[in-house]
């Protein structure tokens, strides 16, 4: 280990954390060349591959710092966006079932799903470079949506020439598709406000209907990560790098290989922002039809969109000196504090919205980035509840049960999923208690709790 490992947790979460191999992975990441200060893990940490999920590591290019495709993961720019509305629970209740069914029928989801928003090769290249701007140009949203997306939905420096033919192919028909597994679209109601002022800044209030989308870069991102993990094996001997796990293969940020990966990764990041923008467009359309009103008159505005699997070149303070570091967030959310120059003007005083989805039976949260994140975690916080049970463990625990019926009978939550297997794998007990996770992040001063949302209707891929 070149630096110490730091895990944010409380006593209860710590028992769960040490029960799998995640802590070993924190130690493995601490061995990466040029890693700055410490190898970090958020309280939703669990065993991943290479990096733990919930892992944050910053490397210093001036000190031989590396970039590791495994430190971003296969689903590049997997992330969440939250849309608010002017609707209240009583407005929605009579239409909830119709809305959920209509969302399920109109939003392509499931294994290898392809969508109606088909992009040709030329469009795909534009998506790689322009990101969500492409979607807005095509009429799938408004300019305002871009203001409230991390990096305005388009990260600079994307280089389509670094994307393989196979990756192009896999991205061609998947824009505007949700995917499968833990990806979802959820209609929620805000049931608790913790910070009125910040909630007000984000346009959020108690009793308000919100909608959350969780998706990523689909087959394109998987293929780019796959290509570069394999491609970087040669870099280990070329740059005399030794890693404890082959999945941590990497190259110096400033090497031709490191730069190529960054150029390709940014294409996938931009694709993912486009994808979530297109999904929001499809969802707005469903709301418009259900209420027979335009989305703008329903107040369906984007609160924010955050990436939680990404590597970013960011300015951070190391021992009193400002440095540009390569921050890997693998299952971790950027959490910039009030006053940060990268925030939209409307959120300058409140800080960046940090959107934390929980499991489909309990709660999700909005937090706001706080100064502790810049001091301790390279501007990062947690990304979700974090899994507690393995997928097969969850299926065993749910054997013979009908999770959708249970959720409806217990909490009135309407769930639609492509397969029963997905429902069991994603059952509430498969996840840690998200409230514990956000309390740790809040208590550590990385982010501040703003409000809590309760699920009403869930579409699972």
């Amino acid at each position: 280990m070149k630096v110490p490992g730091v895990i944010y947790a409380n006593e209860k979460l710590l028992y769960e954390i040490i029960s799998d191999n995640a802590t070993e992975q924190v130690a493995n990441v601490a061995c990466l060349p040029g890693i700055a200060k410490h190898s970090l893990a958020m309280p939703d940490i669990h065993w991943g591959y290479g990096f733990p999920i919930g892992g944050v590591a910053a490397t210093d290019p001036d000190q031989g710092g590396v970039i590791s495709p495994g430190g971003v993961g296969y689903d590049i720019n997997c992330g969440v966006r939250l849309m608010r509305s002017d609707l209240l629970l009583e407005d929605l209740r009579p239409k909830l079932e119709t809305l959920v069914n209509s969302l399920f029928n109109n939003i392509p989801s499931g294994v290898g799903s392809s969508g109606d928003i088909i992009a040709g090769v030329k469009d795909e290249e534009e998506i790689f470079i322009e990101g969500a701007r492409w979607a807005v140009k095509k009429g799938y949203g408004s300019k305002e949506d871009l203001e409230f997306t991390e990096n305005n939905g388009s990260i600079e420096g994307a280089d389509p020439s670094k994307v393989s033919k196979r990756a192009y192919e896999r991205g061609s028909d998947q824009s505007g598709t949700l995917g499968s597994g833990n990806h979802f679209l959820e209609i929620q109601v805000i049931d608790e406000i913790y910070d009125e002022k910040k909630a007000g800044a984000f346009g959020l209030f108690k009793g308000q209907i919100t909608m959350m989308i969780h998706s990523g870069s689909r087959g394109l991102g998987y293929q780019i990560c796959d290509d570069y993990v394999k491609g970087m094996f040669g870099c280990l001997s070329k740059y005399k790098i030794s890693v404890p796990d082959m999945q941590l293969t990497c190259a110096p940020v400033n090497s031709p290989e490191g730069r190529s990966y960054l150029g390709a990764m940014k294409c996938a990041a931009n694709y993912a922002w486009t994808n979530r923008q297109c999904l929001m467009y499809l969802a707005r359309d469903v709301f418009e039809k259900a209420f027979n009103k335009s989305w703008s008159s329903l107040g369906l505005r984007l609160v924010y969109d955050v990436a939680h699997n990404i590597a970013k070149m960011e300015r951070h303070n190391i021992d009193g000196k400002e440095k540009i570091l390569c921050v890997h967030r693998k299952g971790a959310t950027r959490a910039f504090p009030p006053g940060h120059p990268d925030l939209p003007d409307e959120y300058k005083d409140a800080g960046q919205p940090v959107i934390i989805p929980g499991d489909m039976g309990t709660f999700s949260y909005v937090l706001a980035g706080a100064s502790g994140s810049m001091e301790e975690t390279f501007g990062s916080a947690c990304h979700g509840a974090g899994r507690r049970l393995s997928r097969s463990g969850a299926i065993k625990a749910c054997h013979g049960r009908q999770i959708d019926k249970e959720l409806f009978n217990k909490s009135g939550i309407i769930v639609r999923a492509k397969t029963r297997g997905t429902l069991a794998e994603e059952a509430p007990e498969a996840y840690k208690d998200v409230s514990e996770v956000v309390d740790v992040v809040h208590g550590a001063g990385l982010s501040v709790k703003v409000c809590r949302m309760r699920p009403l209707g869930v579409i699972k891929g």
Partner: protein
Amino acid sequence: MKPFEIIEHTADIGIRARGVTLMELFENSARGMFSLITKEAVKPQPEIRKEIHIDKSSDKFEEILVAWLSELLYIFNKEKVFFNSFKISNLNNKGLKADVSGFNAGPRQESLRKEIKAVTFHNLRIEEAVDGFSCVIIFDV
């Protein structure tokens, strides 16, 4: 000897594959991977046969194993061919040749239960014992 079994992993999913020979280990790894995608018995449909060539020089058979599984996964994603028969005819440190066959899974999308994003290298090590070879492969799902 079980050809493969599913193993626990918190976020993703893994298999432990075994084989008396390296070739059998590679074949059983592919069987294990496709067993994660669907459990259902394949309905009779016209059989699709393919020849797979993996051209990869490496002194690590793990790299060739991941290249082989990734190639099958790529064809599955692109052409929706669900493979259920694997015969490797040649395997060495320059790659492999195999004959594989399966069926079009396109019309049966609903029964596909798992999207495998990728085959990872996480802690991947082919181990040799007196009764043959084994390895644990973690898939990102």
